[in-house]
């Protein structure tokens, strides 16, 4: 699914250049649930942004589902993002003047899908995240956990090859975090490939594989026994 070879990225900070990623190599297969861990400044968000085509690498190879991702212009990147990728952000990034259903259907709008069809599809995904009855509510009428679930529904609506989650639980309390992770696990169970960036150990252990990043290089890459988030979610 993902193949990365010798990825480098540096940022210019005035006259200094900050080398954030110093040669990253890894592969992820279909249906994997990978946690990318590391302290702040380790380069984990940068890696995710490059994987998400929100940012460009300076050098190295990135192949997504057999398609080499390079020399993208903005239009092409946008089309790839729309087709291949779903994003979940720490700060949810919902459009505040659109209700839950409209937010979820937005990627479908950019796919050129008709209004009726995409609203139906949006409702289907809202139902999957348990927010069907909240469909007409604006984001500021929803709790943090609900917002993140809407964001996950939006990321899934386009049926992407790869779901990228950047600190999806970073702005949530632990109970809500587990609920969100439960949802992510269920989506993964259904066969979707998911990358989760986090710095929380318990969240990372709810994935199937943990990649540890430190100072721009991978220091550890191990499979773990997945902790099911459902065990922590209060039933009823």
């Amino acid at each position, binding site marked *: 699914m993902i193949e990365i070879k010798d990825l480098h990225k540096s940022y210019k900070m005035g006259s200094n250049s900050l080398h954030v990623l110093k040669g990253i190599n890894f592969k992820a297969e279909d249906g994997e649930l990978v946690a990318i861990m590391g302290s702040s400044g380790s380069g984990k968000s940068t890696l995710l942004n490059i994987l998400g085509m929100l940012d460009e690498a300076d050098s190295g190879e990135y192949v997504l589902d057999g398609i080499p991702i390079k020399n993208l212009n903005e239009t092409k990147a946008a*089309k790839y993002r729309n087709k291949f990728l779903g994003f979940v952000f720490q700060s949810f990034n919902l459009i505040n003047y*659109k209700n839950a259903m409209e937010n979820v259907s937005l990627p479908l709008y950019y796919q050129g899908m008709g209004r009726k069809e995409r609203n139906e599809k949006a409702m289907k995904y809202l139902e999957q995240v348990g927010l069907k009855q909240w469909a007409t509510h604006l984001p500021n009428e929803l709790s943090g956990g609900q917002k993140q679930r809407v964001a996950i529904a939006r990321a899934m609506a386009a049926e992407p090859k790869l779901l990228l989650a950047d600190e999806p639980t970073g702005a949530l309390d632990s109970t809500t975090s587990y609920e969100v992770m439960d949802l992510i696990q269920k989506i993964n169970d259904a066969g979707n490939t998911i990358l989760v960036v986090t710095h929380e150990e318990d969240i990372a252990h709810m994935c199937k594989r943990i990649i540890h990043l430190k100072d721009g290089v991978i220091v550890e890459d191990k499979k773990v026994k997945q902790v099911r988030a459902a065990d922590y979610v209060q039933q009823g």
Partner: protein
Amino acid sequence: MFSRDNWKEIFETIRKNKLRTFLSGFTVALGIFIFVSLFGFGNGLINTFDEFFQDDATNVFFFFPGRTSKPYKGFKSERQIEFDNSDIEDIKKNFPMALEYITPRITRGAMVRYKSESNNYTTRAVGESHQFAEKTIMMKGRYLNTLDIKDKNKYAVIGRLVEQDLFDDEEALGKFIDIGGSMFKVIGVFQDDGGDNEERMIYLPYTTRQLLEKNNDKIDQFIVGFKPEIGYTGAMAFERSLERYIKEKKVIAPDDENGIFIRNMADALQQNQQFAGVLQLIVAFVAFGTIIAGIIGISNIMVFVVKERTKELGIRKALGATPANVISTILLESVFITTISGFSGMLFGIALLSSLGDTLEDYFITDPYINTGTAIFATIALIIFGAIAGYVPANRAAKIKPIVALRDE
């Protein structure tokens, strides 16, 4: 790009961002509204100036006697010049080429009485061609004619308001009125565009007036109408030769400025038209400035709108909006708002102008109007330049990397 779905998306955005919509719409509507009103007022001003001259014929010279200021050929200065009937005949005889008509005018105030009603009016004792010089319009009966002048008939042509004042609902034609002690028969009623004062006049044959004043042949002033086909330069030349002729006849020094006075309506009209032209230029300049200000206003709002929407646009890009999507989202929205508000501002302006009509006549603005073509042109210009001005920030927004836009709080 112009699919129904796209428009729905735009309508939704507009509906849900009322302040933004209001701000940009209001600026445009106000700009066009001011442009239309200003342009209309300018035209109203020009209308007023034109109207000053519409009342009277413009192919006429008015000759007034004066008092000489220079001794000449044995005459002392300070000599009062007087016109008489022979001047009329001489001019008729000597200038047949350029002369269309000539009429004397003797103005007197008089107490006018009919039955129990009485009032003071101005009477003008004139020749039959005075009707053309003053553009007198007959409502009923007839104007004075050559025979009336020759026979020194005691006939009177009264203004519309004189009839109203003296006769109420009674028919004035054929009735006799007392003008300064003599009975005159009313043979006609007239109206005049020159306003109420003109319609409170009474016209009499000048020969009758002279008869009443001890059968003299004196004339207060006379009005010369020239043939329009001699043109402006011909008129100026005619004026000079007339002046020379009268001065010679009355033995006035050629360089004496005060012996006689001539008012040349053609010259005044020419000056007026030049003035109106300058006025139009100034109005056009100010109106153009308003449009420029409107364009600058809408550009500023576009910059603000894009700044405000940076994060939203970042989200949209992350979800798969292409740069073209982003630009069209911003531009179509702004063009839609400017079109709607531009045309409503234009319609409001036109409605204001047409509702004003004559109400601002005291401020020299008559029937303000704007050419529909001009108004639509200005509106479309504002829309187009607004779109061009909006394209710059929209293009910049489309080029921002989504990751940068998403960080924007």
